[in-house]
C-alpha cells in the first residue's frame, strides 16, 4: 500500500491537467470561411461544368434509337382472354406490325416493359428464398415465400415466393420483312443478358446428375406453365434457376413501371450492324395477364450509349442545374457588390 502511494506520487505529483494541445482544445486546425472569391469561383466552375455535362448527355441520349409498342392494347382479345384466370391453359397468339424508319445500328436490345406492376411492394419483394435459389436444400416453410411455399399436399414449390410465381412468361419473336413476301426471323441471344454475378454467384441449380432429378420432389409455382427445369430445354447453362429470363425477373425493379431486358440482337447475316430499316412483325405468345391490374405491357427495341438509354432526364437536369448555378453566381455577385458599396458609404 505504502509502495503504491509513493509510486502514485512520483507519477502524478499534482492533479494539474496535462498541457497537451488536445486536452487544452488547441489542436492545430484549418478554419475555412466562405469568402466571396471562393464561393463565386466555385459557383461559376460548377455551373459551367454542369451546363456542358448536360448538353453532352442530352446529345448522346438523343442519338439513341428506340421504338416502344404497347401490345397489351393492340392484342386486346388476348388481354381480355387472360383476364379470366380459368382460361390459363388456352394459348393466345398476337402479331404486331411496325416499320423501322431508320437503321438501328450497334447493339440492339429488346425489352419488355410493364406498367403499374408493383414489384417493389414490400411483401412482394420479400417473397423469395435466396437460399433456395442458390440450390441449397432449405425448408422454405420458414422463408418469406408464404403463401407461395407448398401446395396443400405438402409438395414444396420450386422456386417459391410471389416474385417467382408471377414471372413474366410471354414469348416474343421478331420477324424482318425483307420484302412483302419473305420474312426472316431476327436472331436473338437469350443468355448473357443478366449480370455475371447473378448468373454465377447468386443463382445456382440444385446439384444432381441431371436437372430434372435435382428438382425432384418439388413442383412448379401455381402460375407457371412448366417447371423450372424446362425453362430452356435447349441450353443446359440457361435452365432451371440460372435461366436468364428468370434471373432478370427475380431482380425486382425499383418502380412500378420498369423495363427488363428480354433479348439481345445476335449480329449475324443481315443483322451484323444492327437492325436495318424496314417492316417488322412481333409474334407474341400472350400469357401474362396485366389488364386486370390496370397494367400495360410494352415491347421495346433500343440501342444504347455511354450514358445509358434514351432517358433525357439526366441531361435536362444537368443543364437546368448548371444554368441555375451560373445564374445564382451572377445574382450573388450583384448582391455582394451592391452591399460592398453600401458598406463603404456607411464608413464614410
Amino acid at each position, binding site marked *: 500500500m505504502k509502495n503504491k502511494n509513493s509510486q502514485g506520487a512520483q507519477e502524478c505529483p*499534482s*492533479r*494539474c*491537467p496535462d*498541457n497537451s494541445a488536445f*486536452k487544452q*482544445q488547441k*489542436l*492545430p*486546425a484549418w*478554419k475555412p470561411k*466562405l*469568402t*466571396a472569391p471562393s464561393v463565386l469561383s466555385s459557383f461559376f466552375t*460548377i455551373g459551367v461544368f454542369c451546363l456542358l*455535362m448536360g448538353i453532352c448527355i442530352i446529345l448522346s441520349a438523343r442519338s439513341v434509337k428506340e421504338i416502344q409498342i404497347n401490345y397489351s392494347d393492340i392484342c386486346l382479345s388476348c388481354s381480355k382472354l387472360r383476364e379470366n384466370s380459368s382460361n390459363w391453359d388456352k394459348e393466345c397468339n398476337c402479331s404486331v406490325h411496325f416499320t423501322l424508319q431508320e437503321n438501328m445500328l450497334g447493339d440492339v436490345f429488346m425489352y419488355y416493359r410493364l406498367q*403499374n406492376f*408493383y414489384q*417493389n*411492394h*414490400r*411483401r412482394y419483394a420479400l417473397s423469395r428464398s*435466396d437460399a433456395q435459389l*442458390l440450390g*441449397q436444400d432449405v425448408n422454405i416453410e420458414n422463408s418469406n415465400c*408464404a*403463401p407461395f411455399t407448398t401446395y396443400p399436399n405438402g409438395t414444396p414449390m420450386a422456386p417459391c415466393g410471389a416474385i417467382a410465381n408471377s414471372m413474366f412468361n410471354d414469348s416474343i419473336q421478331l420477324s424482318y420483312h425483307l420484302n412483302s413476301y419473305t420474312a426472316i426471323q431476327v436472331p436473338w441471344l437469350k443468355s448473357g*443478358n*443478366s449480370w455475371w454475378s*447473378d448468373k454465377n*454467384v447468386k443463382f445456382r441449380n440444385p446439384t444432381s446428375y441431371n436437372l430434372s432429378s435435382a428438382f425432384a420432389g418439388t413442383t412448379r409455382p401455381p402460375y407457371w406453365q412448366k417447371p423450372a427445369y424446362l425453362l430452356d430445354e435447349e441450353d443446359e447453362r440457361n435452365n432451371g434457376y440460372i435461366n436468364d429470363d428468370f434471373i*432478370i425477373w427475380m*431482380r*425486382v425493379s*425499383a*418502380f*412500378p*413501371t*420498369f*423495363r427488363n*431486358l428480354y433479348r439481345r440482337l445476335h449480329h449475324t447475316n443481315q443483322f451484323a450492324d444492327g437492325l436495318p430499316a424496314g417492316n417488322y412483325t412481333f409474334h407474341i405468345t400472350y400469357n401474362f395477364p396485366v389488364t*386486370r391490374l*390496370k397494367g400495360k405491357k410494352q415491347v421495346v427495341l*433500343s440501342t*444504347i*450509349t455511354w*450514358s*445509358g*438509354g434514351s*432517358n433525357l*432526364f*439526366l441531361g435536362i*437536369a*444537368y443543364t437546368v*442545374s448548371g444554368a441555375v*448555378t451560373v445564374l*445564382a453566381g451572377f445574382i450573388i455577385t450583384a*448582391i*455582394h457588390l451592391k*452591399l460592398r458599396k453600401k458598406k463603404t458609404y456607411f464608413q464614410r
Partner: protein
Amino acid sequence: FLYKFRFFSNNRIKTSKYNILTFLPVNLFEQFQRVANAYFLFLLILQLIPEISSLSWFTTIVPLMVVFTITAVKDATDDCFRHKSDNQVNNRQAENIFNIIFFLQADLLLLSSSEPHGLCYIETAELDGETNLKVRQALPVTSELGPDIRRLAEFDGVVVCEPPNNKLDKFTGVLFWKDNRYSLNNEKVLLRGCVLRNTDWCFGMVIFAGPDTKLMQNSGRTKFKRTSIDRLMNTLIFGFLVCMGIILAIGNSIWEHQVGAHFRIYLFWNEVVNSSVFSGFLTFWSYIIILNSVVPISLYVSVEVIRLGHSYFINWDRKMYCPQKDTPAEVRTTTLNEELGQIEYIFSDKTGTITQNIMTFNKCSINGKTYGKSVFINKTVPVDFSFNPLADRKFQFYDHSLIESIKLGDAMVHEFFRLLSLCHTVMSEEKNAGELIYQVQSPDEGALVTAARNFGFIFKSRTPETITVEEMGKLVTYQLLAILDFNNIRKRMSVIVQTPDGQIKLYCKGADTILFERLHPSNEELMSLTSDHLEEFAGEGLRTLALAYKNLTEEHFKEWFKILQEANTSVDSRNDYLAAAYEEIEKDMMLLGATAIEDKLQEGVTETIASLSLANIKIWVLTGDKQETAMNIGYSCHMLTDTMNEIFIVASHTGMENQDSDREYFALQALALEGDLENEFVEVACMCKTVICCRVTPLQKAQVVELVKKHRKAVTLAIGDGANDISMIKSAHIGIGISGEEGMQAVLASDYSFAQFRYLKRLLLVHGRWSYFRMCKFLCYFFYKNFAFTLVHFWFGFFCGFSAQTVYDQWFITLFNIVYASLPVLAMGLFDQDVNEQNSMDYAKLYEPGQLNLLFNKRKFFICIAHGLYTSFALFFIPYGAFYNTAGEDGKHIADYQSFAVTVATSLVIVVSVQIALDTSYWTAINRFFILGSIAVYFAILFTMHSDGIFVIFPNHFPFVGNARNSLSQISVWLVILLTTVVSVMPVITFQFLKEDLNPTLTDQLQKARRKQKPLQNYMRRVYRTNSRRSAYAFSHQEGFGELITSGKNM
C-alpha cells in the same frame, strides 16, 4: 447512546447507486426507464411481429446493444467516482484538521466540552453564511461529565424532541436523566455543518443523523436535471413521426383499396389482413419502425458522448486549475454542458464564494490623517514588524508613516491603537511563550485587534475585571469597569476602563453615522475630515468603523454606574433600560479616527462579475448574512454602483430582501416568498440591475431559484461553497460548488465544481458557449442528416404502394447512423470552434445567442427538417428521373431495386459528408480523418457486404451480392450521385454565404477579422471605481458576548 441511531437513519452519506452485484439489473432497469430506451424496446417488439416488421430485428438491436453497453460503461465509471467521493466524505468524520477545526457530521446535543461551563464555540458559515463565532453551552449537569469517557459511556439520558425538520434556528426537546427533566433549546445543540472553533474537544449525543439532520433536511430534493434541448427534441420529433406515419397509413389504405385490390392476383394478403383499413393500421406501425431513424438511438448516445467529451475538456482545462489548492475543475453531472451556454441568472452565495472570508486591516484615518496605501497601486515593501516578537506574521501593512508616528509617540495614534486593543470581546490564549492565539467572535474584530497587536499594542489577556495590554513593550493592566455591548440597533460597542494611574476612559467603536451624532461639538472639523476619508474607504468597498473616546470623571462614572446597575436589576424591559443607560454615557465623545477593513474578495471576482454582466447574465447574491455586510460586498465587487440611486430594501417576515434598481422604485412593505406576492417579487426583482437577498435561509435560497425558474423560464445557475447552498444548487438548472474550501457537501451536490469563483467566467463564456454552440450545430446537422436519410422512404412510399418498403439495404440502415455518418458529426460536436477562447472571453456579447436560444429552437429545427426534406427529395427524385424506363450502359439492369438502393445510399453518404465538411468550421486532423475515413469505410463495407463469399455463407441476409460492382461501374450512376450532391449542396452554400454577407453576426465578423489579422474594437468596458459617501458598517457581531465576558463564564 448509540441506541438512538437505530431509530433514524445511518449517518453515512450515500450518493452512489450501485455495487458490483446490483449493477447489471439495476442499471438495465434504469436504462429501460428512460423514455428513449423504452421507446426503442417497443420498436424492437414491433419488429418481431411479422405482419408489421418492415425491417429486420437486427437494425434495432445492434444499435440498442451498442447504446446500452456505452451507457452502462459510463454509468459504471460515474458510480466509481461517486463511491470514491462518498468514502472521502464519510472518512472525514473524525478527522482533526489543524488541531481546532472539526466538522460535525450529525446534529448533536452538547454534553460537555473543553471550555469552562460547557461552552463551545462554533462557526456556522456552512449553515447560514454568517462568519461570526457563536456560543453553545451544555447543560450544567452534563458538563460535569467532562472528558471522562467511562462516565460518558454510562450516560443514559433519554431525549424526547421534535421530529426531523428544516428549521435551523429552533430546537425544542426535553432530556430525561436521573429522574430529572431538563428542557433543551437551540443553544444546546450543535448542528451538522458547524465547525468547532477555539474548542479543543466536546462530547455530544447524536440526536439526528444522516438525512435527518437539519442541514440535510434543508437540502431539498434531488431532481433529475434535463436540458431544454432534450425536451424540445422529444415533443417535436415524436409529433413529426406520428404525422408521417398517419399520412402514409392513409395512403396505404387508399392504395390497397384502389390499386392493391387488382394486384392481389400476384400478391395475396396475409391471413390476418382482411381489409384495407386494417392494412393501413399495420402500415402505420411498419412506417413508425422505418421512420424512427429520424430519432435514431445513436442520437442519444452521440449526445451523451459529446456531453461527456465536453465534460472532459472542462476537467482538463489548465486555466480552471487552481495551483494553490491543487484542484482542477470537475464535472460531476455530464449531461448539462450545453445549458452552461444559456445561463440568464446566476445565484451566488456570498461567504466563501465571492468573499474569501478573510478580513484584513487595510487603512485607517487617525486624527484627520490617512494611513495605508492600496496594495494594487504600488508595490511597496510591507512594513517590517520584526521589532515586535508577538506580531502576527500574516499581517501586512503598506504604509511606513504609521509606524513612524507610533515610534515618535504621537498621542492620538497611541490612543487609537489602545482603543483597538481594549474595546473588543476577543479572548486570548498564550499557549507557549510568545505564541498568542486570539479567539475571535467576529473576523472584523480579529483583524482590528491583530492590527493593534502588530503595531505594538498587544492585547495579552483578560479577566472579568481587567484587561492586560502590552503597550510598546510595557505591560499595562486596565481595570475593566463596564462593557457596553453591541447590538443591531446601537451599532456600536464601548468599554469603560480605568488606567493604572486612575483615569477613567470610555472607548467606543461603531458605525460612523451613529457615532458622529454623539461626538462633542468641538470635533466638527475633524469629523468632516474623517468623513471624507470614510467616503474614500467606502468607495474602495472597505468596511469602516469610526472610533471615539471620552474621559470620564470618577463622580460622573459612579453616578452613571448606579443607573446601569438599576437597569441591570430591573425585571421587565431590562434591555430598554440598559440601552437608555448606555445612551446616557456615550455622548460628547472625542473622535479618534476610523478603520477600514477589507473583506477580501476572491481573486478576480470583480472582473468576473463585470464580464458576466456584459454577457447579459443577471447575478443575484443570496446570503444568510446581514444586510450591511451583503451590501458592502455588493459595492466592493461593483455589483452596486453609485449610478444606481434607487436602492430599496424590502423587509419581509421570512427574511430580508434588499434590491437595488436604477429604474423604478417600489415600496413594498412586506413581501413573503410564499403566497400571493411572489409574482410581484419576481417582477420587481427582475427589473432590478442587481439583486442582493440577505438573511435568507438555505431553503429560501432554493425558493428564490424556483421562483425565477417558474416565472422567467430562464436557465439558472447557482454557485456556492457551503452546506447552506446545497438546496439552491440542487434546485437551479445548474449547480456549481466551490471546492477546496472547508465543506465538501456543496461540491457533492453540485454539477460542476472548481476552486475559484473567477473560473465561472471561463466555464460559462468559453466552455458553456462552445458546448451550446457545438451541441446546436451537432443537433442541426444530425437532424438534417437523418431527415435526409429517412424521408427518402416517405417519397418512395408513393411508388411502392405505401407498403413500408425501405429504399436502402437493411444493413445500410443499421450502419448508417452508427458507422457511416456518426464520427464526422461527433468530431464536429466535440472539437468545433467558431471563435477562439480568447475572443469568447473578450466579447461577452457572443454569449447572447445562447440565452436567446437562437442556435437551436423550433425555427431552426424546422429549417433543419426543411433542409433534410429538400435533400431527401433530391436524393430520391434525381435517380428516379434518371433511371425511369431506361437501362444501363450495357443494356442491362439499372433501375432494379437493389441498384437504386445502392445509388441512393451512396449519394446520401457523399452528400452528408460534403455537408459536414461545409458545416465544420474548425478542421483538426481528427475531423479530416473522420470525414474521409467515413467515406472510405462506407465503400469498404459496401463491397464486403456485396461480395460473393459473404453471400454464400448467409444467402438470406446478404442478397445484394454483386450489386456494388455492377452499379458503381456505370457512368450514369456516378452522374446521378454528382448531380444529387450539387443540387443538395449549392442552395445551402448560397443561403449561408448571403446570410453572412448581408447580415453578419458578431461571430462572422470575428472570423473575418481573424482572416484579415485585424482586431475588432474591444467590446469590454472598463470597470470604473466609484467614490461616494456611503455609510458602511463593519461588525459581523453578535450580541451577548459582553455579558459573557463580564460574567466570567468563559474564563
